[in-house]
């Protein structure tokens, strides 16, 4: 199933001919339904932005839902707070660190599991599936204790390690089919030419699987960027929180300053949006490759 998906998703669909035109005439229900779908997913996005541009008093009065005087106060407040830059930096460090460490572990493992056929492989894959499905709320309990013992609490390394442990199973399972799609004959030819296993891996397998690496890397970065449970619990002071944890902490507080919070939500989302613009194709296809979120 794995790589057939990618191919079919890429194939241009529906020859724009007579049949396609007839179909459009024949389904008058589809267009309004598509509009409904658009609204269901578009309105929350629009609302984040609108609210972030309101003054706190406009948020409370229902009359000014749509008609209000936009203000950038929430943003100037947020950006004037030096804590925000620390949080942004923490987000970048944790997401990048997690992505790098996860790829370092998952790329070779995905390759190994794609090539070795033994009962061990089956057992390993089964365990990865189970690990990937474990509730994070269960993992956080023993990890907190283990990190306390190993002095990893309140460190970036601790959060990066925990995020990596959470995401490596997913990353391996995502990488594996990309390696499996490479014909074994190609590798064997390289070996007959005198390249060792390691060299074959670096000079043949890695370049061919670069799409898979890019997809996996992007997904891991996105997931690590949004992760907040480990950050909230392993960092002992909010001063070290990444953006996601800061947002989670503020939204569950009483008496929320909504414009400020939504401004924070927008700021948290901007890097994701940038990444999204550049990797949309990868995401759209990578997602269908057995991504579990």
């Amino acid at each position, binding site marked *: 199933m794995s790589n057939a998906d990618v191919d079919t998703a890429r194939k241009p669909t529906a020859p724009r001919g007579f049949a396609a035109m007839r179909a459009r005439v024949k389904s008058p229900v589809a267009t309004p339904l598509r509009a409904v779908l658009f609204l269901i997913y*578009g309105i929350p996005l629009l609302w984040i932005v609108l609210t972030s541009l309101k003054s706190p008093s406009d948020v409370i009065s229902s009359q000014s839902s749509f008609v209000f005087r936009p203000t950038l106060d929430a943003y100037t407040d947020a950006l004037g707070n030096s804590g925000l830059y620390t949080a942004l930096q923490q987000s970048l460090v944790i997401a990048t660190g997690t992505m790098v460490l996860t790829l370092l572990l998952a790329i070779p493992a995905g390759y190994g599991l794609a090539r070795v056929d033994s009962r061990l492989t089956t057992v390993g894959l089964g365990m990865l599936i189970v690990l990937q499905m474990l509730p994070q709320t269960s993992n956080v309990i023993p990890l907190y204790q283990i990190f306390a013992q190993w002095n990893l609490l309140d460190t970036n390394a601790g959060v990066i390690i925990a995020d990596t442990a959470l995401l490596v199973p997913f990353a391996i399972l995502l990488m594996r089919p990309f390696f499996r799609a490479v014909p074994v004959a190609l590798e064997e030819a390289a070996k007959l030419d005198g390249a060792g296993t390691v060299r074959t891996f670096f000079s043949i397998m890695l370049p061919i699987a670069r799409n898979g690496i890019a997809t996996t890397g992007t997904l891991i970065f996105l997931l690590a960027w949004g992760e907040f449970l480990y950050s909230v619990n392993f960092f002992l002071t909010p001063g070290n929180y990444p953006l996601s944890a800061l947002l*989670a902490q503020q939204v569950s507080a009483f008496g929320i300053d909504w414009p400020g919070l939504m401004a924070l939500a927008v700021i948290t989302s901007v890097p994701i949006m940038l990444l999204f613009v550049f990797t949309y194709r990868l995401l759209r296809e990578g997602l269908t490759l*057995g991504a579990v979120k």
Partner: protein
Amino acid sequence: MAIDPTPTHPSRHGSVRVGRRGAASRFHRLAQRKQLLFVAPAAVFLVVFAIFPVFQLLRMSVSDVTVSTLNDTWRFTGLENFQSNFASPAFGETVLNTVIFVGIVTVLGLVGGLAAAVLLSKSGRWTGFVLSLLVFIWALPPVVNGSVWKFLLGSSGLFNSIGLETGLTTQPIPFLFDDSYALYSVALVNAWAVIPFNALVFRAAIMGISQEVFEAARMDGATRWEEIRHIIIPVVRPTTLVLLVLTVVYGFRSFDFIYVMTFGGPGVATTTLPFLGYVQAFVRFDFGLGAATAVVAVVMVIVLAIFYARSVRREEVHS
């Protein structure tokens, strides 16, 4: 989908082997041993940071561990933690919440995902735009989506504003602060959040159907609805099976929307089983009790994982 637990079939191995079987296969076995080493770093890492914690969790669940004894030796208490969990009425309520929550997320997630996929399986600029919007929503951190929905459903949020303005309601509806609404509200938002992923997976399956099939159906005068019933639904059935398990697991594991929107409240109205374990450990600081709840959750996940492995294997056989 990418995951297939069946080992590579020997026939997949290239033509190099033909005619030089003996040497090539020894060569192959030697290569495999080296390739197995590639798995070693990840294996070691996962044993230390993923599997060892599960054992530690098991040990905690049969011990008396509080925040002050966390790093001392733990007193062994046998099944006491489990017993006190099962005896508390909140636990039963939590299990019921979990069933309702997972049920809503799964049914709406699958039906909504398939509906969205059907709507988005035709090419076109408008379709492409809506599709990218869905992927973007998926890519956003859950904490962002959860925050917006907390606001939208709040007493001065969009829904209550519309209700009050149009006179449909005279008082704001406490979507998140009322025992009877809160669980459904959070579950609906979770379903909303899982639909984009399910829609993409369904869409990939639908796009795999040859256009000629649809053209032939149209020649025979089939309506779009008939196409959906007789072509699309049978084709996506194996995908549905895999997605079913994935969505159940997603709903079961979900904590981010609960954390952000209600933190399990009011009371335990939106506390699911995995979230209860978290609250017991990190809010009430009873790590032993929390670990016991978490162990119950882990066992449930293992059962689901077995279903998942089976349904994936079945799909592989069919495809």
